[in-house]
């Protein structure tokens, strides 16, 4: 009697994309891709993307987006290093997580209470917070003569992979648990599917949004810890473009831009590996120039979004034709003018 969910075409696309990308670079790099050194590098490079992606997934599942994770990572990294140097090494990790979470919660409050589109808000944060980060770095430059700050020596062991890897795995597992097996994920997906209906059932939409952005921010803070400890110091370009890399990873993994039930942690991991493969692969075959990689990424993002939308809309179109059998006759009859009036109320400029 029990039948498992069928594998949908839409779910297969990201796997196919991953395999194609993998094979392409495997051939193009003449196997250099598989050197143990490079495989280690791959894992290392994708770590932060996966971390931020796991956080951002909570936001994306609700149909929103958080483009502030890159600057948030930079801000929390810079602030935490500063704290570590002033107050002592113990302050490093708590400060990073606190700053990250504060920025995230702020995003969540403005999006849910202020009704601003998350894209608009987080892109404003992208520019505003980057300004603050640059200001801090420049002020430091004036006092110390050096824009980057070093981590205290006692914290340098944080950069070793023997410590990073298990921590990373634990975090991803915790996120997977929260996302797949708690209210947080379930309600989040419900909001992505239909925010009005979720609210009408009694899902605390505002709280869920704040929590989702909060988690996204918190993980950006963790990303800050990972990034700073890896290099042992902060730098000017920290977190730059990271938000796009993470967003690309999520969409490349097959999560819909509109969020909903299709959001899964494994898709984030898969997408992150794909995007890292591209960056790493281009470097190996000697095309690491930023213009080439950025063009490839841009085209790929367009293509993958187009394919996911195409695959999904074909499914909906099939449904829609069947739907007309019912709603074409009854729905049109019974829906009332009052509702139509509300629908007109939709703002002129949905952005």
């Amino acid at each position: 009697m029990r039948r498992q969910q069928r594998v949908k075409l839409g779910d297969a696309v990201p796997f196919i994309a991953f395999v194609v990308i993998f094979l392409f670079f495997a051939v193009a790099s003449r196997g250099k891709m598989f050197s143990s050194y490079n495989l280690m590098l791959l894992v290392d490079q994708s770590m932060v993307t996966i971390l931020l992606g796991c956080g951002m997934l909570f936001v994306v599942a609700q149909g929103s987006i958080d483009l502030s994770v890159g600057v948030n990572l930079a801000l929390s990294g810079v602030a935490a290093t500063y704290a570590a140097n002033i107050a002592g090494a113990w302050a490093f990790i708590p400060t990073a997580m606190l700053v990250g979470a504060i920025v995230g919660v702020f995003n969540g409050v403005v999006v849910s209470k202020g009704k601003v589109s998350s894209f608009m808000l987080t892109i404003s944060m992208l520019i505003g917070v980057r300004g603050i980060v640059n200001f801090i770095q420049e002020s430091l430059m004036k006092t110390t003569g050096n824009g980057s700050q070093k981590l205290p020596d006692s914290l340098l062991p944080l950069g070793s992979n023997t410590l990073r890897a298990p921590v990373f795995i634990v975090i991803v597992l915790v996120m997977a648990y929260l996302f797949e097996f708690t209210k947080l994920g379930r309600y989040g997906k419900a909001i992505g599917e239909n925010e009005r209906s979720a609210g009408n059932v009694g899902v605390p939409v505002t709280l869920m949004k704040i929590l989702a952005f909060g988690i996204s921010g918190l993980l950006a803070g963790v990303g800050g810890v990972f990034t700073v400890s890896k290099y042992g110091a902060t730098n000017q370009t920290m977190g730059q473009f990271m938000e796009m890399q993470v967003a690309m990873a999520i969409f490349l993994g097959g999560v819909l831009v509109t969020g909903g039930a299709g959001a899964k942690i494994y898709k984030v991991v898969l997408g992150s590996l794909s995007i890292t493969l591209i960056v790493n692969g281009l470097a190996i075959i000697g095309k690491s120039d930023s213009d080439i990689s950025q063009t490839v990424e841009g085209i790929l993002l367009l293509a993958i979004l187009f394919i996911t939308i195409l695959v999904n809309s074909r499914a909906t179109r099939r449904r829609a034709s069947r739907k007309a059998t019912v709603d074409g006759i009854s729905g049109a009859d019974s829906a009332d003018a009052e509702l139509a009036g509300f629908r007109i109320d939709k703002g002129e400029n949905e952005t």
Partner: protein
Amino acid sequence: MGNNKKNLTTAVAFAAALAAALVIFNVVSGGKFLARENFTVVVSHIVYPAFTAWGLSFLFACGYTDMSVGGVVVLAAFASTVFGNLYGYPGVIIAGVVVGTLLIFINFNIFAYTKIPSWIASISLAMIYEATGFYLKTSNATKSLVTTALNRDYRVLGQLPWSAVLLAAGFAAAYIVYNRTTVGLNIRAIGGNTEVSRAMGVNVNRTLLWVGLISGLFIGFAAVVQISYSGLMTVKTGLTSMSMIFQPLAIVLLAQIMKKRVNIIIAIPVCSLIIYSIFNLLTILHVPSGTLQEACLGAFLIIFGVMGRRGGREVVK
């Protein structure tokens, strides 16, 4: 009719508030703000954001966002420089406007046909345009062409009084198209309610193409103004070109808040003046640009965004 009177009152109140704001700015800056030299700079600086904002307002009117405008402006400005240095004014204007219009038109077709949400599609396009610009700047074949500044003789459109003339012409064009043409009214109709528009005989697809063209023209001109003012365009990768759109974006958001009282086309140059004045003031007050000014811009965007949404009941993602 009482309507005109009400409009007049609004207009007078609006102008008075604006004048008061400028005077206050002047006092805060210790008389530097309204000094002739400074104010000339302010006026010639609002032309680019105003044109870009007009272009954006047409896109917004039918529910699209385009974050690749910065990248488009970069490429159009390159074209302007190269062809301007070769053929003089016709080169400056035609090349810039054609490239700008063409790219926005392409964007618009991509938004309309792929059904990818425009914000994310336009970010992908911004990546591509930016990288193209960067390639042109670094590649040996084109390097010398695009890194040569536009000849000083061909930069008159970026200076007063010509930039002011251009602003006035742009305003007239935008106002008429938005309020007094079938295309403009249809664009607004589609943005308001596509279904009704279609049922009333508006050709939605053709109108959407028009939107691409009109926005493109404004953004093309914006590029021409920008290159005429600065003479040289630089580009970096990493979505840095997006920063070129934030000021115009703040302007459109602010103009939208006033939408119910003031026609958005009129509000745009006024808001440009306000926003640019604020940044000018910050500069006069020695607030460092690139750092804290950016932070202010981000804050403005958020505040305007929240204010524009106040009272709205619909679901926002």
